């Protein structure tokens, strides 16, 4: 590796919370598929890397009709895809997971890591926003729960404080069995960062959109119904996005493709 750092792999929450509150320059390692690249490129300069994978309970997925779904901080994208409960009750989440990077990366990358990094092009965020998921955040000081709609504060920025850990994601039971789909525009057929991504959610007459790569943060568009014509839904999407022009495409093209994918998904998600 291009930098020198210490490494710890705590097995208990207490040990983890002590490490993050007692040391400066700690970076948490879940899957490592973003962090280790950032360290290699010098974008991250941690003094200590703390591996979350061995903390008791962080490798758990649970589902119940009363409490909904809980996804621990060490759960990988491929574990989401292999979870019968997620495929059955939250197919939109599986659709987002399927489009994330390559098979090898999905074996390591985690759902929690994908949202904590707060990239505008997060693939899991559009689905989690539509499903009204919440982040369970803990530290030595206690625990708090934050809806993902309030979680992202800017490009690569979240509400997480220096000593806090996103321990698990909970998805409420009332969004289970929603119909949904995710479309991600990429430059190539293989794995790539999204140019834009759109998730559509439909349940009990309610329509929601989750949009990635079209604003500083992943976006949720609410207040729509299945009776709204596509033009109204697209207008709501256009009212929410703030796309930029960059190396991958122009702002106009992003806006155009949000329009196109929203219309296609509204038809596909019957």
């Amino acid at each position, binding site marked *: 590796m291009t930098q020198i750092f210490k490494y710890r792999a705590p097995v208990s929450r207490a040990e983890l919370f002590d490490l993050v509150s007692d040391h400066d320059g700690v970076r948490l390692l879940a899957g490592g*598929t973003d962090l280790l*690249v950032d360290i290699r490129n010098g974008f991250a300069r941690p003094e200590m*890397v703390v591996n979350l994978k061995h903390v008791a309970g962080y490798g758990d997925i649970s589902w119940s009709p009363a409490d909904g779904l809980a996804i621990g901080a060490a759960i990988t994208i491929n574990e989401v895809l292999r979870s019968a409960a997620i495929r059955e009750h939250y197919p939109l989440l599986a659709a987002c997971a399927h489009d994330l990077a390559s098979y090898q990366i999905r074996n*390591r990358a985690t759902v929690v890591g994908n949202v904590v990094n707060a990239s505008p092009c997060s693939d899991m965020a559009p689905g989690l926003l539509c499903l009204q998921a919440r982040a369970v955040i803990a530290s030595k000081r206690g625990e708090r729960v934050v809806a993902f709609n309030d979680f992202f504060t800017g490009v690569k920025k979240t509400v997480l404080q220096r000593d806090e850990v996103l321990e698990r994601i909970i998805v409420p039971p009332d969004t289970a069995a929603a119909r949904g789909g995710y479309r991600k525009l990429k430059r190539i057929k293989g794995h790539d960062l999204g140019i834009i991504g759109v998730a559509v959610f439909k349940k009990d007459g309610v329509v929601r959109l989750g949009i990635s790569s079209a604003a500083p943060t992943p976006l949720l568009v609410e207040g729509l119904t299945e009776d709204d014509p596509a033009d109204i839904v697209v207008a709501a999407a256009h009212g929410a996005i703030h796309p930029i022009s960059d190396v991958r495409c122009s702002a106009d093209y992003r806006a155009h493709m949000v329009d196109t994918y929203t219309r296609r998904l509204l038809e596909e998600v019957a």
Partner: protein
Amino acid sequence: MRMSLTVNGRLYERAVPEYRTLLELLRDDLGLTGTKEGCGAGECGACTVFLNDQTVNSCMVLAAEADGASVETIEGEASAGELSSIQAAFARHQAVQCGYCTGGMIMAIRELLANNPKPSVAEIKDGIEGNFCRCTGYQQIIEAVLDASGQLTPATKGELKHV
């Protein structure tokens, strides 16, 4: 830190810096240079190995994370001097030109065939989406996978121009 891991069935014990990657451990400490570094950022798949029976990009795994683990690399693919069925199919179809991507490519294909013994052409393309080839051409690689999975018949061979 002192760590131990099994690579291709052989136990190794080493003292390694905590900031070592698994790829660096394999190549620089153990001398297993069949696993290559391409991009160092999880794009190209040249560094693909099995870690506890799952394919990973070894440039994006710390060696420390493999303490106590079982790792398999391209060096373990042939046994007793005999090519594996995937390697033999690569040779028959000239699916190797420079060979740089081949080690990682064969690891990804072994994982694909373990999960899906008769993949369609579309499923093969999905299975190797994390592995870049910049010279051989994917055509020959896809043919080799169809052959290794027993799907290359005189009838299907004619269609391969279109894969």
